[in-house]
């Protein structure tokens, strides 16, 4: 798989140098209005195959399959979808110039009512059509690719669940990919919304996969409800868009937003109606919910209750980047508001910092990774906010690989050590037999996350955002905060690595250890041959007395996936160096989509002669302490990352003899309330409880009472009125012939008198 990926990347570089993309951002917006050329029908396979997979898994459940069949079906379907995505990429970038195409599946909504001004019929058209441009390709490439890999990983990871649960897992897994492809590929906001809700649903289903575990159920509900808040914003944004622009189709929308973009380009924000400026802000609410930004981020760390493959795919690599996609896709809308992008940038930055500080103080390695995801998503939003959609997209791309890698490595550890996730209870895992690959892969992932210079793709993508933050006028403070966060990130990342994978080999199995140690246990009995039983010759340490526990090292599926991801993470550097004239491969992809909106001086070399667009602020590019940020940021961020790693080494590895203690403990005591605050996640959950949950609870009871007394009363009254009227009217139905005749004649008389009066008047 890695060969394929690198090969494709190389091939794309070749194509890219041939096909020079236009420099003007406006030219990238679909110029042809509603009539975009049709894409290859092959594109329809991308959503169709996961749907097929979902149905097949459902059938497996119905047929009572107890083998790994659903997993293989899933991997086959998603793998084929990945191939289709590659083909889509080839089609999208192969031709001369750049253009969006549309693959039409079927008509979905076509509601017409009357004629608007100019004889144009008012209609709501939202088809099941897919908008294929390079941004779509970029997203779908890693969504389908990672889904395939993680599906393979899950085939082993979930082996203990074989039976109905296994089918359920993979059905939801496929449904997620289907929803995600609707979200990313939809050619209208309605389809995007369908996908948006779909991924939310799948996320709920998969977080709550262990539905007998109260904490998992609570986490699933939390994720769903938190997302609803964001979804409300998105829904309002979509409605406002339709009201304002009369369409929800991208091709039309980007055409109709152009006059406003022109205004914004010249800084004339006063002339843009407030409602147009409001749209991006509403979208932002949706994006913050889905992508776990302040203040809606609290669901993501709890979402780690789901099985680790789910955390890796949905809550690290793909779904949570939907918000980034939304903002990137609608960058033309965002530049129309002088408030939207700064809001995005600042919220992203503060989220990055907050989550990083919390991550520093946690002990659960999966949670640390979750906070780091929140933090990295903050980076991406900051990147979008400071107008480097290329940087943001590049970071999404690299982050998808290395974060999936980190999660899967953590998952392998968790799987092998009976659900143990506490970094104080694991140590020196890399040196245990069978764990070498995991250790190396974890190291690669950590290096990427911390932005280790030159060797890692994470370094380059993070760099791009940092440099641009300093370049874009007015955002230098964001740059400094992000730089600080980079240091913190390096520290907490390597804190995990040095604690868990280096140092003396010790471990203490987790709660699920007994299940795993039981020789009759199905999971173990059916475990793949690759499960080596290590740990005998190593001291179990800590005197926990569980002599029977053998951590089982990961099998071939997990190891393969980890290795591929490690290679991919590193290979993603190539995307930066290929086609440097256009800010790298990702840059070219972004530039040729609707997300094209590059601030001046973007790209480190500054080699491009014509900047794609002005910022609209008209100010000169900022500097980093008087130097060109793009030139100097390599060195600065490298130093920051190394300092962070060094600190982690000194505090958590150097001279450490036991798993539970390290030099940092003393520091913790010294830091006092700050450390306690970070450990308590800044008590955001408690604040939410006090400010939102409790009042809502009280309110709900009050409303319940109101409902009982007032609404039910009204409803009952409405029920009694016809009955009362019927009782009254039925007195006229006395069965007497003459009274009936009298009624008829009387009624006739009334009618005639009334008619007479009407004619008279």
């Amino acid at each position, binding site marked *: 798989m890695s060969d394929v990926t690198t090969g494709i990347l190389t091939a794309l570089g070749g194509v890219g140098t041939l096909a020079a993309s236009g420099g003007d951002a406006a030219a990238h917006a679909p110029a042809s209005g509603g009539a975009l050329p049709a894409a290859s029908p092959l594109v329809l396979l991308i959503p169709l195959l996961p749907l097929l997979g979902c149905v097949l898994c459902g059938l497996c459940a119905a047929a009572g399959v107890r083998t790994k069949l659903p997993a293989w079906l899933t991997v086959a379907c998603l793998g084929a979808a990945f191939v289709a995505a590659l083909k889509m990429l080839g089609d999208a970038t192969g031709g001369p110039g750049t253009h969006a195409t549309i693959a039409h599946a079927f008509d979905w909504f076509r509601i017409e009512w009357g004629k608007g001004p100019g004889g144009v019929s008012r209609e709501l058209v939202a088809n099941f059509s897919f908008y294929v441009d390079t941004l779509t390709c970029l997203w779908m490439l890693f969504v389908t690719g990672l889904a395939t890999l993680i599906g393979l990983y899950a085939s082993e990871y979930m082996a203990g669940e074989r039976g109905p649960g296994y089918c359920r897992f993979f059905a939801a897994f496929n449904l997620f990919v289907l929803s995600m492809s609707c979200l990313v590929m939809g050619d209208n906001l309605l389809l995007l919304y369908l996908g948006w809700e779909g991924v939310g649903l799948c996320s709920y289903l998969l977080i709550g996969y262990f539905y007998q575990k109260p904490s998992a159920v609570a986490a699933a509900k939390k994720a769903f409800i938190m997302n609803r808040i964001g979804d409300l914003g998105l829904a309002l944004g979509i409605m406002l868009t339709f009201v304002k622009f009369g369409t929800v189709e991208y091709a039309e929308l980007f055409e109709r937003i152009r006059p406003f973009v022109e205004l914004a380009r010249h800084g004339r924000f006063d002339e843009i109606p407030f409602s147009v400026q409001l749209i991006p802000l509403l979208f932002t609410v949706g994006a913050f919910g889905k992508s776990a930004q302040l203040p809606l981020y609290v669901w993501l760390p709890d979402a780690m209750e789901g099985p680790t493959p789910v955390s890796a795919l949905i809550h690290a690599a793909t779904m949570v980047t939907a918000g980034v996609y939304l903002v990137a896709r609608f960058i033309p809308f965002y530049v129309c508001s002088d408030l939207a992008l700064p809001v995005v940038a600042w919220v992203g930055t503060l989220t990055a910092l907050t989550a990083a500080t919390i991550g520093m103080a946690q002990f659960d390695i999966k949670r640390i990774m979750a906070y780091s995801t929140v933090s990295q998503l903050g980076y991406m939003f900051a990147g979008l906010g400071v107008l480097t959609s290329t940087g943001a997209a590049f970071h999404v791309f690299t982050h998808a690989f290395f974060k999936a890698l980190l999660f899967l490595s953590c998952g392998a550890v968790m799987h092998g050590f009976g659900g143990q996730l506490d970094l104080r209870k694991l140590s020196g895992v890399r040196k245990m037999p069978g764990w070498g690959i995991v250790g190396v892969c974890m190291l690669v992932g950590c290096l990427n996350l911390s932005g280790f210079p030159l060797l890692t793709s994470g370094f380059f993508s993070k760099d791009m955002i940092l440099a641009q933050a300093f370049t874009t006028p007015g955002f230098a403070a964001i740059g400094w905060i992000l730089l600080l966060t980079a240091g913190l990130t390096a520290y907490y990342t390597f804190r995990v690595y040095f604690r868990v994978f280096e140092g003396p080999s010790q471990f203490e199995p987790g709660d699920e250890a007994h299940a795993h140690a039981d020789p009759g246990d199905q999971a173990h009995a059916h475990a793949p041959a690759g499960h080596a039983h290590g740990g005998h010759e190593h001291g179990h340490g800590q005197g926990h007395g569980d002599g029977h526990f053998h951590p089982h090292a990961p099998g071939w599926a997990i190891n393969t996936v980890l290795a591929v991801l490690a290679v991919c993470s590193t290979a993603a550097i190539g995307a930066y160096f290929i086609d440097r004239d256009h800010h790298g491969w990702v840059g070219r992809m972004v530039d040729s989509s609707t997300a094209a909106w590059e601030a001046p001086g973007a790209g480190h070399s500054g080699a491009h002669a014509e900047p794609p667009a002005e910022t609209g602020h008209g100010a000169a590019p900022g500097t980093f302490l008087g130097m060109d940020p793009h030139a100097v940021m390599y060195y600065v961020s490298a130093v920051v990352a190394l300092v962070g790693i060094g600190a982690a080494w000194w505090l958590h590895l150097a001279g450490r003899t036991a798993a539970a203690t390290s030099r940092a403990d003393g520091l913790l005591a010294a830091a006092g309330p700050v450390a306690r605050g970070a450990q308590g996640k800044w008590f955001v959950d408690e604040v939410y409880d006090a400010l939102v949950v409790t009042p809502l609870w009280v309110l709900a009871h009050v409303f319940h009472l109101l409902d009982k007394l007032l609404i039910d009363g009204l409803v009952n009254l409405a029920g009694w009125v*016809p009955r009362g009227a019927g009782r009254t009217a039925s007195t006229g139905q006395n069965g007497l*012939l003459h009274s009936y005749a009298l009624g008829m004649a*009387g009624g*006739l008389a009334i*009618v005639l008198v*009334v008619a007479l009066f009407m004619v008279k008047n």
Partner: protein
Amino acid sequence: MIQKIQSLWPEIVLFATACVVMVVGISPSVAVRRSCGVIAGLGLALAGLVAIDWPGPASSVVWPALAPYVKVLVAGVGVLLLLVLAGLPDREYEAAVAHGQRYDPIRANRAEFYAFFLFSIMGVMLVSGAEDLIWLFLALELTSLPTYIMVAISSSRNRSLEAGVKYFFLGALGAALFLYGFALLYGATGSTNLETIRQVIAQQRLGSEAVNGVALAGALLAVIGVGFKIAAVPMHFYTADVYQGAASPVTAFLAFVPKTAGFVALILLLTTIGWGYGPSGQSLPEPIRTVLWVIAAMTMTVGNVLAVVQSSVKRVLAYSSIAHSGYMLVGLVAGPGPAGAPFARNGIAAILFYLLCYGVMNLGAFAVMASLERRSRSGATEEADSIDDLRGLCTTRPMLGWIMVVSAVGLLGMPPLLGFFGKLPLFTSGIGAGEIPLVVVLGINSAIAAYYYLRLAALALLEDPDVTPVGGGLSENAPPGRKFAGFICAAAVIGLSALAWPLINLADGAAKYEPRLTPGSAVSAREAPIVPSADALTEPRAASGRP
């Protein structure tokens, strides 16, 4: 003349069948007597088949396709009605004959019953082809007079006789009213030919904006008088007593056949006035529109609120049949809209389609009631009528129970059943005609109707059957034809909703509205503006092609 007779082939077939039935029905041989129903059914089916191919009267220029649709409709539903009616007449008398009593043709009712049934249906067919007021009056009475007898002889109980008498007297009052209206129309226009009346009224409008007052009074009286046939307020009083007094199969007949005749007659009568008034130029003259509006609103409201408080299923269905008439009157108020209006705007098409839906659904409910008997403590059997008789019917008699559930829910208008598709065009045509308040009343009434229809459905479906029934309990002692008819109706309520669009197209075609003045009138239709201009709205609409 030849052409006119040609258009009457279905009626001729029915008449011939009725004659045969009258003779065969008094045969001393039981087997021959029993063939009555079969002969009637075959005749009816043949008449329906003939009607499919036969064009309406050529001179019926305004509604060129109305008559065939109505004829096929009544023939089709008539066959189902016949299935339910079969075995009803002479039931006790035949039992007595079987026990050795001597057969006396004078005392037997069978022959008359089937013949009157056919005559009544023939009356509806004649109404649909009416071109003349006299014809219309005779056809309407031909529809009604047999029903009075059918009510009276439907069972040997006194209540049936009482109901028959009441129905006859009140019906005579109604007939007198619309006959008076017809006379006034004749007085105002000098003709009894409907088309001529239409032309004259249109010509009279050339001079003044208002409709001739005498013609208006005549039309009002006629509409209210015909309102008796459809049980519209204020002519609705008889409904519950008569429906309850008659045997269930006859009640089913009453709820459909005279109602169809009434609506067709109303359509033809109002066509003479025409939907060419009001600000939009597509509604009735203001006095008639207001009267119809109020009658529609009152009819559905009175029907529904009275149905809510009933404990007898037949009375519930009787009052609900009043309410359904009210719903259909909305279509009459809305009118056919501009020439070439889409189905959703054409209230007449909505009525024609709703008649079909209502006929099928209502018959399903009545077929269930007709199939059930309650044995009283004294051992005598009587019709199941109490709403409690339905309790747990889905458990004890699944087939009948489910027919009742489907019919009741269909009558309520629950999507995706037939009733929903029937009611929807009434809503859309009302909205299209700008009668929003009336549509709101219609909506509220549909909600009220949900109360008692859901009660019928819920009793049958959700409740447990009575373990210790008061009296002797229910028995099913009816000819299997009723159950079969009910099954077909329930299947149609579900199945026809899938075929709703073809049927709607049929109704739409039947309600093709082609009003035009004959050559020689002042302005040719060609010059009429297609969309009324602002002038046309305020000026007398003489220039319009519509009357």
